[in-house]
């Protein structure tokens, strides 16, 4: 087997040198009754060629050749081939967590640069070296707010990604946290009146997402005032990170939980991605996740180390800030390289293009009779449209023309029937937008 670097004669030599007579003896510690007496009933072994064939076969059963207008927390952006080439260097791909700093300076410096980029983007003072993803980052941010305030109530907007809210619910169940949802207004933004009414002295955090699940920018300064007014923290989730190229970062937020997938990570059917928690310096000791810090060696040379490790599971054990062990290092590295390539101007331009495409697409869709925007609030690159018919029916028709159309919201928001979420990015061409508009127009003309 090509992954095993021993010949049978070498195995035998080592076996005898180790003091055994037979290979079976290697497993004598396992009671006889538990040792498998048959080969595993699994497919394979396959050669490299066959493995590739297998996955090519699976790839052909997916959505190749379709144009997609899906967003909702996962975004199609251009990924540089330069980044991918660098990522695949063995020193990055096959290296371990940088606990031995002297021989991990590459990883540690890259993490330090990632932390810096995240601070610059979010306007916060400190950022960690990544959490699993946006959904778990948001959950960890809420748990952090609970620890910092010592309070148990959490007010979360329904305009936050439904699956993010589900994850929070799963974690909250066993911690005594009381999660209460509040609604949104016709602008598509979190309902400030509802939060104001619900605010009280037991609230640990007010939680929103911006741009939210509907693509609408939330009113961060107003929310910060309400939260801080009752002694709570403002936690802001960000699912579409490219928005930070043009949208004012939520600097009034106490904790930001961001998904970095848009920065050079493939959609990859849901993961792996990279979540980030960014916050104020004064909260750093309650922040979960790895941190790389700058320091010097005994000769004064600059170097980097993992630091503030006493927050983490391997030291604090049951008193840790989280049980998290891995960070998404390779994903964070992909984002770092991507952002360095894009640079200040590139990120701005990319964000501007996203806004332009979205404004154009929405205006074009509104030329179809009966189709109009569902919310009045400002949007970045995705928006909700209201249709005169079921979105599912429209989508079924669009599929015939190889278009994956607006995402029907009814499955997550039962009151939002006939409404679909449309996402366009800098990768969506004018031609594709035109085909979408024509396709929907045609679908609506089909007699019911």
């Amino acid at each position, binding site marked *: 087997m090509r992954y095993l670097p021993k010949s049978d004669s070498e195995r035998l030599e080592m076996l005898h040198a180790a003091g055994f007579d037979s290979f079976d003896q290697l497993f004598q510690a396992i009671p006889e009754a538990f040792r498998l007496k048959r080969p595993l009933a699994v497919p394979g072994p396959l050669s490299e060629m066959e493995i590739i064939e297998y996955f090519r076969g699976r790839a052909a059963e997916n959505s190749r050749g379709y144009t997609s207008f899906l967003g909702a927390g996962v975004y199609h952006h251009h990924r540089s081939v330069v980044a991918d080439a660098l990522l695949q260097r063995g020193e990055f791909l096959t290296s371990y967590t940088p606990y031995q700093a002297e021989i991990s300076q590459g990883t540690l410096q890259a993490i330090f640069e990632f932390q810096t980029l995240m601070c610059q983007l979010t306007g916060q003072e400190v950022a960690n070296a990544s959490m699993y993803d946006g959904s778990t980052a948001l959950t960890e941010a809420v748990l952090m707010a609970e620890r910092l305030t010592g309070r148990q109530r959490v007010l979360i907007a329904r305009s936050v990604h439904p699956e993010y809210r589900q994850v929070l619910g799963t974690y909250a169940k066993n911690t005594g946290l009381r999660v209460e949802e509040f609604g949104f207004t016709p602008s598509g933004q979190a309902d400030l009146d509802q939060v104001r009414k619900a605010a009280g002295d037991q609230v640990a955090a007010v939680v929103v997402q911006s741009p939210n699940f509907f693509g609408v920018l939330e009113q961060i300064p107003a929310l910060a005032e309400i939260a801080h007014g009752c002694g709570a923290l403002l936690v802001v989730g960000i699912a579409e990170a490219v928005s930070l190229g043009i949208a004012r970062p939520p600097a009034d937020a106490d904790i930001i939980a961001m998904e970095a997938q848009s920065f050079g990570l493939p959609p990859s059917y849901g993961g792996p991605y990279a979540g980030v928690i960014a916050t104020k310096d004064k909260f750093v*000791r309650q922040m979960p996740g790895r941190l790389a810090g700058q320091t010097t060696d005994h000769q004064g040379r600059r170097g980097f180390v993992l630091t503030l*490790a*006493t927050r983490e599971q391997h*030291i*604090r054990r049951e*008193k840790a800030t989280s049980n998290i062990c891995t960070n998404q290092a390779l994903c964070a590295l992909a984002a770092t390289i991507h952002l360095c390539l894009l640079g200040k101007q590139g990120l701005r331009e990319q964000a501007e293009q996203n806004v332009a495409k979205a404004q154009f697409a929405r205006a074009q869709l509104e030329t179809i009779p009966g189709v109009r925007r569902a919310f009045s609030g400002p949007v970045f690159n995705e928006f909700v449209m209201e249709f005169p018919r079921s979105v599912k029916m429209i989508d079924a028709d669009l599929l015939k023309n190889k278009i994956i159309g607006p995402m029907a919201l009814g499955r997550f928001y039962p009151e939002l029937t006939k409404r679909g979420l449309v996402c366009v990015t800098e990768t969506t061409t004018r031609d594709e937008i035109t085909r979408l508009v024509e396709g929907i127009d045609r679908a609506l003309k089909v007699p019911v």
Partner: protein
Amino acid sequence: MYPTDRRYTKEHEWIKLDGATGTVGITDYAQHELGDVVFVELPKIGAKIAAGQSFGTVESVKAVSEIYSPVTGEVAETNAVLGNEPEKINQDPHGAAWLIKIKLANPSEVNSLMDAAAYQAYIAEKQKETSA
């Protein structure tokens, strides 16, 4: 070698009485075991603690130690110096790096603690154990 003007606990805290107020810190043995101290977490003024209850932590790079109160009482003062200079605990654990001052609810509790000689013997035993 250990100052005789105070009492000691099995968890390596010391307490020095001044009337009904006690000054509490960790011993030289404790700071040596911990290594370079990087951070100290202390309670709020007014906090009520019971004897044997943890009131804070002392952190090194690789470990966290709980600090247990030798007595029952209310926290009257915490050492502000340690916020910026946690290394003082390594330099002067019995003097400048005191942790808290506590108003004793029950001053007679101190009598059950070890004196300097007893503490000296206690750590001598401990040192024998670890090198065995």
